[in-house]
């Protein structure tokens, strides 16, 4: 082999780069880790605005739809499949039950590196004393 010094250095760099996730995980990343979102206490048995499967896959679509309908068409009431009526509001409806955003929303979002821009405008918790 000619120029073996340069070629081997290049190949080593390439191999390390390609296998970087392996080294990252071995060096201190978490390997077999799966987040468990935690429901706030007292929610057992309560039903969300849509089914669990739908919410798990499409909650972001629903929130987006709610925002557009409220802001653009002033449609403020959401009817769930079983006929219950809810106010279309992240703070007043979603967060009333899911008050523990850090343990519920953020666990999965952080896990897959999703950065929702909900909190750019919404406050996570109502300030004490404020209505």
């Amino acid at each position, binding site marked *: *082999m*000619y*120029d*073996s010094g340069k*070629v081997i250095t*290049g*190949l080593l760099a*390439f*191999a390390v780069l*390609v*296998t970087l*996730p*392996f080294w*990252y*995980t*071995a060096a201190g*990343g*978490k*390997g*077999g*880790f*799966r*987040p468990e979102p935690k429901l706030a206490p007292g929610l057992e048995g309560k039903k969300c605005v849509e089914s669990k499967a739908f919410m*798990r*896959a*499409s909650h*972001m*679509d629903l*929130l*987006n739809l709610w925002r557009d309908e409220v802001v653009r068409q002033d449609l403020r009431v959401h009817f769930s499949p079983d006929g219950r009526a809810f106010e279309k509001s992240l703070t007043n409806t979603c967060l009333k039950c899911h008050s523990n955003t850090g343990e519920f929303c953020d666990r*999965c979002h*952080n*896990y*897959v*590196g999703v*950065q929702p*821009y909900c909190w750019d405008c919404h406050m996570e918790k109502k300030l004490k004393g404020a209505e």
Partner: protein
Amino acid sequence: MRVLVSLIAVLALAFIAYLGVGIGHADTLFGVVIPYLALAIFLFGIIYRVVTWARVPVPFRIPTTCGQQKCLEWIKPSRFENPYNNFGVIIRVAMEVLFFRSLFRNVKSEIKQGKVVYGHTKWLWLAGLAFHYSFLVIIIRHLRFFVEPVPIFVKWAESLDGFFQVGIPILMLTDVVILAALTYLFLRRVLIPQLRYISLPADYFPLFLIGAIATTGILLRYFFKTDLIGIKELALGLVSLKPVVPKGIHWLFFMHFFLVCCLFTYFPFSKLLHMAGIFMSPTRNLANNNRAVRHINPWNPKVEVHTYQEYEDEFREKMVAAGIPVEKQPEPQGQGTKE
């Protein structure tokens, strides 16, 4: 025909994934075994190919240059287009790798009003650059599935990519750009007659394969949302060498993943190896110093030579005796006789 063969090949690969997981439920095969195999073939295949290239001696400098060579003091050399030292070579290769310098030079000749005219055409350069950089950003974005915790630069890449915050999930610009660039690169081969003539299945297949990967990825992100948490668990299992296959992942994900594995496997055997080849091309990675430095061919056989000086030393007396002129006169016989 060549187009059709490539398209059918890619569709067949996608169908294999659907059959395997959608119907056969061979999740472990498609989620663990094939990915590991593909990675091994990718890594060792490329290393093997590069080592075979490196074993070929390059006795003479053969750079293709396009600038003034360094010669006389008062003629300005083109340091990077015609490099004469390693620094120039590094800049030259970096310009090629990062900015596709040689494509930027692309010139088209046409006959207009009976005259041959030349003009720059940057479309191939633009589409090529857009395609490669989109792919790079997409790969960086995908790191979010392979490492935990997610490094900050991955989040930056995603924020920048979704800068305009269009829709939910936020539209990634690179998703649009890579599809547009691939479409251009494909149409260019089909619509320009000369290019169509020289294009082979090996040219169309990678375009379709990467197109299929991008399409399935886009479908997964925006339309058929599947269990991302499960997918990350699968990916983390792979990189921590403790593979797990969570239940409930959509077969479309396995199609995407299998096509990526096909790309990895195909890599060392195809034109895609220009990724490594660009660094190994003797027409680019050598300094043009043939006139300044003597390069000796390493495979030259050892040649026995007998120079004229040695010849004359051997036969001087006989040559003088026969009256043949010699360059160096024989020493007079005996020092003492000179008086």
